[in-house]
């Protein structure tokens, strides 16, 4: 290909990415996977929600940089990972609360917090598969697609992660 031809081809692909996916579709298709990844990399559920939204806002504004629409999921996951790194890097110091505020925390909320704490203690390679697995409604193929690994690899990581999670949760009690 000559330089201009390849340039045209790339332009065509760029236009495709913006035309082929609407922001709404992007959210509907990939929001759960992105949230799962954010949960895996943060220690607070509210932060994961915020990061997930930041990821989509960033993705929509940078949709032109997506050259291959078949790689949308991987592209989004990469943005999410970077956002999580940014979150740890530039996290503003939390303002201390000078007095006690009684916040009604439900049993469910406590349970989620305990689980999130346990997940954050898992080794690096185990966190993503396990959060994605449960958030996708126990669907191994979708986890494999999201992480770009084989289903067998997902299964073996899941089993180890789940055993480790059991150990952490048992210690916690």
């Amino acid at each position, binding site marked *: 290909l000559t330089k201009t031809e390849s340039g045209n081809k790339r332009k065509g692909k760029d236009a495709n990415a913006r035309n082929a996916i609407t922001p709404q579709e992007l959210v509907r298709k990939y929001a759960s996977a992105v949230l799962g990844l954010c949960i895996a990399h943060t220690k607070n559920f509210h932060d994961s929600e915020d990061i997930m939204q930041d990821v989509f806002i960033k993705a929509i504004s940078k949709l032109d940089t997506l050259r291959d629409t078949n790689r949308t999921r991987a592209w989004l996951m990469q943005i999410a990972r970077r956002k999580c790194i940014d979150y740890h890097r530039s996290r*503003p110091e939390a303002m201390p609360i000078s007095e006690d505020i009684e916040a009604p925390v439900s049993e469910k909320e406590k349970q989620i917090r305990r689980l999130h704490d346990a997940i954050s203690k898992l080794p690096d390679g185990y966190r993503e598969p396990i959060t994605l697995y449960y958030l996708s409604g126990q669907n191994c193929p979708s986890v494999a697609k999201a992480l770009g690994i084989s289903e067998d690899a997902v299964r073996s990581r899941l089993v180890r992660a789940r055993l480790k999670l059991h150990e952490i949760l048992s210690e916690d009690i």
Partner: protein
Amino acid sequence: MNNKGNCQNRREAITALVLGILDTKDADELQRHIESCQSCRKLYQELFNEEESIRSAFKVIAERDEMLQSSLIEQFDKGEQTAVKRNKETGKTIKLIWRTIMKNPITKFAAAAAIIIAVLTVVFQFGGSMESLAFAEAVRPVLDARTASFDVALESGNQPVQMSHFLCMSPGLVRQTMSDGTINIADYQQNKAISLNPKEKMPERNGGKNGEQNRRRQPVAVGDLERNNRHESDQRHVWRQDLSFRQTRIPRSTRSVGRGVRRRYGPHAGHLRRTDRGALELHPLPAQKVPG
């Protein structure tokens, strides 16, 4: 069969069984073993009970995820509508113009400079201390985004919180909406600024006598505006001493509720503030601009 070593090897298989990812044939065999082996049955029972609570916790998370999704989609819809409306009005695609402008590094810095000026104006206006302001934090969004919109919250000891909303639309064009409804628009490239107060419109409509007030406000030079503002702030010398700037970026977690926490998007978007009685109150923020 029931020796300890073998059962240790079965731990992963039991976990896979609980997760529901074990082959049917292996699962049947393992089930038979579990019925006869006490230690494996114990592990299976523990994992099974845990699994239920994990799934129910993730179910709650998934429900919240759906809420978030619809809120995000709603915001994108809104963004698209405003973009279409704007395009119809101007007959051009503003987005494209913006992309061209922001590709140029010089204009990027011009935009950053506009923000600095905007922030400086606020500093002059309220006489706050410059050191307490994180300039990098204020400037960074402009380098990333096509438009910048941010809120500045000013707090002083006895005075109510002064909220103002900033919108920087193109290099040097800044619009500031104060909490009392006053709108300041400044063009730092042409050195012009105008201040509009919706409340002052009333006498004009009713045919008020004061000609000075009724006359439409003329744009003034930025220097004059700053001077005027400085003059005004001098009069409030008494209480502006203990004014402090809150950073435009506020901790994200609602757990870290201090004097005020702001969530930008989502169903709980708003400014969380303490009332006199100590309770927390959510004040909604103006709708955010979302790239469409």
